[in-house]
Each structure stands twice: as structure tokens, then as C-alpha cells.
């Protein structure tokens, strides 16, 4: 039974570019949440997707957007990258919005 899978594992981008990160939830899960973990800090909530809609959003600018597909997989898009966007991006899935989260291993994004 595959857990939460994220791709790519590592990514290097230049300031101003755009990036798309992908997440496949654990089998049986229908809800996907995204978190940003900067170096030396705890994860910060970006948003949550359920039934293909953004259900809840954290304190992140509109440059951060997402999508959930009918198969429950999800994408995180970041436009106009800044150096400060360098972080580990974690995807977590759950069986419903209020259920325990299962985290993937993350995508390490470096912006130069």
C-alpha cells in the first residue's frame, strides 16, 4: 500500500520562474493539504483541497495556487519565485478534511 508520494524530490529554480509540485495521496484518501517547511522551522499550512476545491487557506500570497484532480492527486503551483520560497514542501493526505494526516517525504525547492 503506497503512502503519499511527491515529485520531484529536489528542484532548483531561478528567481521569477514558476514551479509545479505534484502529490499523490495515500490509497483511500480524498483530501490533500500542502505545507511549507523553511530551514530550521516548523511546517506552515498553505492550503487544503477536498472535492477538487480549495477548502481552507493559510497566510500565503496568491502566487501560491493549487489544484486537485478527480483521482484526488494534487498540484501546488508557485509563480514569480522569490529566494524566500526556498523550502521543503510537504504534501499530506487524509480520509476527509478533519482526519489524521499522512505526510509525504516532501519536495526540496531551491530558488537561486
Amino acid at each position, binding site marked *: 500500500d503506497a503512502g503519499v508520494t511527491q515529485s520531484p524530490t529536489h528542484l532548483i529554480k531561478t528567481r521569477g520562474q514558476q514551479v509545479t509540485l505534484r502529490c499523490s495521496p495515500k490509497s483511500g484518501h480524498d483530501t490533500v493539504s500542502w505545507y511549507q517547511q523553511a530551514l530550521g522551522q*516548523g*511546517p506552515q*499550512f498553505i492550503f487544503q483541497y477536498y472535492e477538487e476545491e480549495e*477548502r481552507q487557506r493559510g497566510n500565503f500570497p496568491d502566487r501560491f495556487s493549487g489544484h486537485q484532480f478527480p483521482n484526488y492527486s494534487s498540484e501546488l503551483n508557485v509563480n514569480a519565485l522569490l529566494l524566500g520560497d526556498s523550502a521543503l514542501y*510537504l504534501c*499530506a493526505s487524509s480520509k476527509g478534511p478533519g482526519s*489524521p494526516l499522512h*505526510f509525504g*517525504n516532501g519536495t526540496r525547492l531551491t530558488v537561486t
Partner: protein
Amino acid sequence: AQSVTQLDSQVPVFEEAPVELRCNYSSSVSVYLFWYVQYPNQGLQLLLKYLSGSTLVESINGFEAEFNKSQTSFHLRKPSVHISDTAEYFCAVSPLTTNDYKLSFGAGTTVTVRA
């Protein structure tokens, strides 16, 4: 809004010694409480959680945490650590509010176990 403070950023400890990781939180509503562990180059794994009932919760690998409502704390303890417990530990809270499911994390405590 919720906030979480982990009082120790790094905790070095010898193998078979006890360890305590301190966590305090602030919230205007009641919360669920969690401890997550993150091993190098991996995502977060749920260690234990407090939802309701007994204020002392235990994990399968010997960790325990006690919810103290009056002190708004949820400290994590283990009576005897192993080398394999070397990891980063995060305390987190989630509000008991309908349609608000986000986790708010502390900054983490790095535990290094030495032989």
C-alpha cells in the same frame, strides 16, 4: 488563531537516559494536540495525539505526553532513549472548530542521542 512554542531547539542526550521535550501552546478555542517526528530526509510521522479523555497519551515506541490544560502544555517524555530516536520532533495543534483543520506547528526540537 493558534501558536505553538517548543522551548528547546536542541536536546542532546545519552543513550538509555530519559528525555523531555517541552511544548506550550496558545489558542482562543479548544484544540487537539499532536507530536510528530521527522527523521532525516523524510516527511513527518505522527507519534501521538490527544483528542479527548485521559490526559496522558502513549505511543507504541515508549513515548508519552501529558496534556495540561491549565498550563496549556503538552510535554513529550521518554524514560530511556535509543540511538534510533535521533530525529526532529514537532508539537502541533489543531482547533476544535468546524471547517478549520489546519495544523499549527512549533519550530521543532532536534534530539541527538549519543552512545
